[in-house]
Structures are given as C-alpha cells and as structure tokens.
C-alpha cells in the first residue's frame, strides 16, 4: 500500500476551461487576491476619514512602515509616492499572494488530479509579467523624468563615439584614445541593454523559485507528517513571503530611482 506525495509541477495546472481559455489554479489564487483587495478597497474608500477608524489606522500604519523603507531608497517621500502605483501594487500583491498560499486548502483541495488553489507566484507567467511591468515601468518613468533621448543615450552611446573623431585634430594619439574610450562606452551601453534583460529574468525567477520551493517543501513535509511538523515551515514561509515581496518591490524601486536619475555628466552641463 502506498500514498503519493504530489509535488506541484513547474507549470500551473489547468483546473477548468472557459471557452478556449485555460483557467489555472494560480489564476484562481490571483483572483482571490483581487477580490480581497477589491473588498478592502471599497470598504476603505467608504470609511476613509481625516480622523481614521480602526481599519484605516491599521492600513495607514502598514503603509507608513512600507513607505519608510521605500524612502530610504528614493531619498524623499515625493519620489516614493510617485513610484507607489507600481511599487506599492507589486509589494502588496506579492505579499498577499504569498500568504494566501499558506491558507488551508491551498494544495489540499483537488479537482481531478490537479490542485484547485496554488500560490499565484508559483506561476512564472505572473512573476514574469510583474518583472516586465517593473522594468518597462522604470523606462517609462525615465522617459518622463529625464527625457527620451537622454535615457536612450545611457544605452546607445553614439554621441561620444562621433565626438571622439574630433579629438584627432589634437593629434593621432589623442584621437585614437578618444575613439577607444568611446568604443568601450558603446560596449558598456550594450551591456546595459543585456542587464535590463537580466533584471527581468532575475526578478521573475527569484520570486518564482523561492515561492515554488516553499510550496514544494510544504507539500513534501505535509505529506510526510500531516500535523505540527509543517507548522515551523509554514511560519518560515510567512517570512519568506514577506522577504520576497520586500526584495521584489525594493529592487523595483531601485530600478525606478536609478532610471529616473540623470546620467553621469548630464547634470554638470
């Protein structure tokens, strides 16, 4: 007689179909998060006052704590609030999704052979979507903050390359050094483009990897010993969920801050 430990696959499992659309278990968890945010948002928006009630007080306390950390990266509150639509949404969504994955029912309720609920961030599609929003958002903010050409100039350093030819009038050696420097700067610009792709890959895989690993760990431990033993691991996963939300949002705000700051030398002119 044998019992099986169901280790979740890398890809989210399709629970049912609506027409041609596959509905996965991670999407259901994301929808649950959406419903929770919607209910909280409607209740909060109705109850919001200058003299806060209990719920508003808690929300403000939590938000103030998060804003404090973000301020440490941006340097001022005004900038933090400007980035908050992206960073705040990422932080709170990742946090809630991660913690929802620890609720009873996640992994244990099955539809056919598939789990009905699975942490939303164990779906690489979602983490990739958020990473893309984060990186593309940083470029959009940069276009608005420092201008399209200034920002693109960080990656395509052609201007210095053209300018370097003018150095030949001071001598062949000076010209050659200037062209060599410009070539290196051009190459650095191209590496910067690669680093933007690396940002997306690292952000999405880090979050996916950590949450997926946690899910697998809890699945295995729960299958081995159902009672009490998984509790410390679940507490650990609570912490992991918070840390991963913080890491993702902090990196996003770092990208936003770096992207919206003028390139070296630009502020001198």
């Amino acid at each position, binding site marked *: *007689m*044998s*019992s*099986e*430990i*169901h*280790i*979740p*696959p*890398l*890809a*989210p*499992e399709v629970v049912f179909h609506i027409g041609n*659309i*596959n509905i*996965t278990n*991670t*999407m259901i968890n*994301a*929808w649950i*998060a*959406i419903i929770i*945010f*919607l209910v*909280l*948002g*409607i209740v*909060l*928006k109705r109850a*919001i*006052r*200058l003299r*806060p009630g209990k719920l*508003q007080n808690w*929300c*403000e306390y939590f*938000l*103030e704590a998060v804003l404090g950390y973000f301020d440490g990266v941006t340097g001022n509150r005004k900038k933090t*609030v400007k980035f*908050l*639509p*992206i960073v*705040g*949404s*990422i932080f*709170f*969504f990742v946090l809630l999704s991660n913690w929802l994955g620890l609720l009873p029912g996640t992994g244990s309720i099955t539809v056919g*052979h598939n789990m009905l609920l699975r942490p939303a961030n164990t*779906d*690489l*599609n*979602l983490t*990739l*979507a*958020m990473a*893309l*929003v984060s990186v593309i958002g940083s470029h959009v903010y940069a276009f608005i903050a420092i201008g399209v050409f200034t920002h693109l100039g960080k990656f395509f350093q052609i201007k210095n390359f053209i300018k370097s030819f003018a150095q030949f009038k001071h001598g062949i050696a000076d010209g050659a050094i200037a062209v060599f420097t410009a070539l290196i700067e051009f190459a650095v610009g191209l590496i910067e483009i690669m680093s933007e792709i690396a940002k997306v890959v690292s952000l999405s895989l880090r979050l996916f990897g950590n949450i997926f690993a946690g899910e697998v760990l809890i699945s*295995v431990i729960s*299958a*081995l010993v159902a009672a009490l033993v998984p509790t410390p691991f679940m507490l650990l996963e609570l912490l992991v969920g918070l840390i991963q939300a913080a890491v993702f949002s902090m990196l996003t705000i770092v990208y936003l801050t770096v992207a919206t700051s003028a390139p070296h030398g630009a502020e001198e002119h």
Partner: protein
Amino acid sequence: MFLIENVYATSEEPIVATAEHTTQPAGDEGVAASLGINAQLFGFQLLNFAIVAGIVWFLILKPLTKTMEERKKLIDDSIDNAKAVETNLQMSEVKFQEKLDEAKVEANKIIEKSHTEAEKLSVDMKEKAKKEIEMLIDQAKRNIQTEKENMMSEIKKETVNLIIAAVEKIMNEKLDDKKDVALIEETLRSFRSVS
C-alpha cells in the same frame, strides 16, 4: 506522471513522490514551455496584475496617501498656527509687561506729582492762612485803633462836656481862690488820665 523517488515514511507504507512535467525534457516546446511560460497565460496574468495594480492604487494607496498628506498638511498648519499664536502671545505678554511698566512709571510720576502738588498746595494754603491771619490781625488792630480813637474822641467830647458843665456850674457858684485852684488841678488831672 513521472516518478521522482520513493520516500518511505514507514517500512510498510512507501510514499511515492510524483510530479507532472517537473522534469519533463524541453523537447520541441523549448525551455520557456518547460517552465510553464505560455503566451495566453502570460497575457491573463498580466491582465490580473493590471487589475490588482488598478484596485490597489485607486481604491487603497491613492486615497490613503492623499488622506495622510492632507492630515500631515493639517497638522503642519496647526503647528504653524500654534507657533504663530504662541509668538503672538509672547509678544502680547512683552507688550503687556511694557505697558504695565509704563503704567507703573506713569503712576509713580502721578503720585510724585500729586505729592509735590499737595506739598505746594499745603505750603500755599499755609501762606494764605498766614496772610489771612495777618490780615485779620491787622484788621483787628485797625478796628481797635479806630475804637480807641473813637473812644478818645468820645472821651474828649465827654470831657469837654464835663468841663463845660463844670464851668457852667462854677459860673453859677461863687468861686473863691482855693476852689478855683482845686478845680483847675482836678480838671488838668482828668485830662492827663484821659490822655
């Protein structure tokens, strides 16, 4: 379904760990598909995140940050107002103290002036009283003198009348030498005593 490994919880009951697609070879689908990346799913998850971002920003974060900012502004304004009120109060207290000091100085001056005036008045009144007394004394002296003079004139008149009466009496009587001398002496004495 692919078997990964057997884990034995007890010797009798083997637990079999299974995972679908976990170690499936990428094959024709490629690495992305083996990781579960799917264009349709990606699109839906992007939409999910967009909805979450919209809800979180417009229903939660924006109203909260706006309220917090309003409250901060209100508190800052209140603190500024309180500081302004405190400064005004301090200035008022200083002015009040200044006015109080001025009033004290003024009051002291008035008291001093009133003392001086009172002293002057008392001196003046004393002088006046003295003068009046002197005037009264003079008046009295003059009255006495007048009375005296009137009396003297009355006495003289009476004396003259007496002398006339005496002379008339003597004239009516026969006078001898002795009586004549006595009468003259007496008359002279009476004149002396009167004068």
